[in-house]
């Protein structure tokens, strides 16, 4: 099987060449982040900096925009969104999947409709409302519209349906309340779905530029993508060394998380691939 037939050599070469093209941006990002301005302008194809300017470039990147604030904001916003989404969606999905709930069908219609509507479609009225309520430039503004994830309800619903009814009946006979059943029977059985959704939600909101751009104008509440945009604006020239250093700092957390938990990431994204 593993002998090097001609076909396999060809296959491996094609895959390797493609892989090289796909990681080329990362290679150039790391290389350019260590080059001095003058070197960037003269030899863009050499990968190893002649003079190591990592410290200068990283210092510049860290001093222009507060990277720690950005990353912290990213973590706070993503964590808040995820926790609220799960706390809201799980009880609802449980009621729809396992309880005698007359409105379950109607809810299903709402969920399917909701899946169609991205934040870009609801942004205008939400922005006007948030402006009237004077909550722009706040964590509330960044988190609130995502407190309801119809996709989470949809995903958990599929998962909860597969939990045997007997398990729930047994818990009831033991005198557990419905809330207790959700917390102690349903949630422990739904971990794969919850982790998959966690990854999906974190990737989506860590990356989102549109909504933060709409509601945040104050650097103190900027998320990583928005912060990078500010950095680019402040760095009007072609200081690609510092720009790449900033890019590297901001890309690293998610890429590191992905490399550590690859399998979960791929599973999570495939499982949740339903949502565009």
């Amino acid at each position, binding site marked *: 099987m593993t002998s090097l037939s001609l076909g396999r050599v060809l296959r*491996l070469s094609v895959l390797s060449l493609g892989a090289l093209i*796909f990681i080329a941006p990362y290679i150039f990002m790391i290389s350019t982040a260590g080059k001095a301005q003058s070197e960037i302008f003269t030899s863009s194809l050499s990968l190893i900096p002649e003079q190591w300017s990592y410290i200068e470039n990283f210092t510049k990147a860290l001093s222009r925009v507060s990277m720690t604030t950005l990353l912290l904001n990213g973590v706070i916003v993503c964590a808040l969104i995820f926790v609220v989404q799960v706390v809201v969606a799980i009880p609802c999905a449980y009621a729809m999947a396992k309880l005698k709930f007359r409105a379950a069908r109607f809810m299903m219609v709402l969920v399917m409709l909701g899946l169609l509507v991205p934040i870009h479609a609801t942004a205008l009225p939400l922005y006007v409302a948030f402006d009237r309520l004077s909550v722009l430039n706040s964590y509330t503004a960044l988190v609130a519209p995502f407190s309801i994830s119809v996709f989470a309800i949809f995903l958990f619903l599929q998962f909860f349906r597969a939990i045997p009814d007997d398990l729930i009946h047994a818990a009831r006979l033991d005198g557990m309340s419905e809330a207790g059943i959700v917390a102690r029977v349903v949630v422990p059985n739904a971990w794969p779905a919850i982790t998959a959704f966690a990854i999906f939600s974190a990737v989506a909101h860590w990356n989102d530029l549109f909504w933060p751009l709409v509601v945040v104008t104050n650097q103190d509440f900027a998320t990583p993508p928005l912060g990078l945009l500010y950095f680019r604006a402040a760095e009007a020239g072609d200081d690609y060394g510092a720009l*790449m250093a900033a890019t590297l700092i901001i890309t690293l957390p998610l890429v590191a998380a992905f490399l550590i938990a690859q399998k979960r990431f791929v599973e999570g994204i495939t499982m949740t691939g339903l949502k565009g």
Partner: protein
Amino acid sequence: MASIATDLPIALADRREARIAWLLAAPAILLLFLFILLPTLAVLVLGFTDFELGFGGFRFVGFENYAELIGDRTFRRSLSNTAVYTAIVTPVSIVLALAIAMLIEAETRAKAFFRTVYFLPVASLVVAMATVWQFLFHPTIGPINALLAEFGIAGPNWLGASGTVLYGLAIIGIWQSVGFNMVLFLAGLTAIPRDLYAAAEVDGAKSWFERFRLVTWPMLGPTTLFVTTISIINSVKVFETVKTLTEGGPNKASEVLLFTIYQEGFVYLRVGYASAMTVVFLAILVILVFLQYRVLDRKVHYA
């Protein structure tokens, strides 16, 4: 469990259960109305008004906004740019993803490694990687044109010229989405029963291409349809790269739908007019999903 004589307690228990169900679902229902249904209805209504942020009142203007849209050259440009972008990114990223998935699937050892590499862009910050691509595409100091120069080719000013900017953005879009599509195809490929290939071979499908045509392609039908719909929807929603790199320029050559909506609504604050654009955007999404269901109903049932 319950005896036939105790109907009343059962009815009571049912009602209690229904009440608990409502209680558990209440927060979700409330938020769904507040943040999805109400704003969607509001966009439909606002599309018929001349509402502008900063001005107090507004009046209903009927279809005036829509009439203006038809004659709006920026909007028409934006629609056609989005269509061109989608028409490039979707097929290329699907074909590449399928090819890579099949090559990886046939590989025995380095599967996980290649999957990781091709998937990496999906897990990277879009705005950050767009910045890297801007450097790669730089007309004078960028590695892409430096490489082309090695072969004596004068590279274009990728993101700075109206003739190439959409292609530049499309290359970034393809790079970003191939890994995602590939993972979905890999899942689809693993689900194909091995003996189908053996059966095809017995039936005379000797060449690789014959087996692909007779087994792989038809069995992947549902996956392909799904990947196609998602890819189209994601391409129609292109925004991050445009906002970060080109701001719709040069000369509106990279104006895309969401960017135009963003400009009108949140920069010029013409909420009514931007709402009408949003309605068009929503209509496109609805049509795409509707088409997916239609095709799904008709074509891709094998089981």
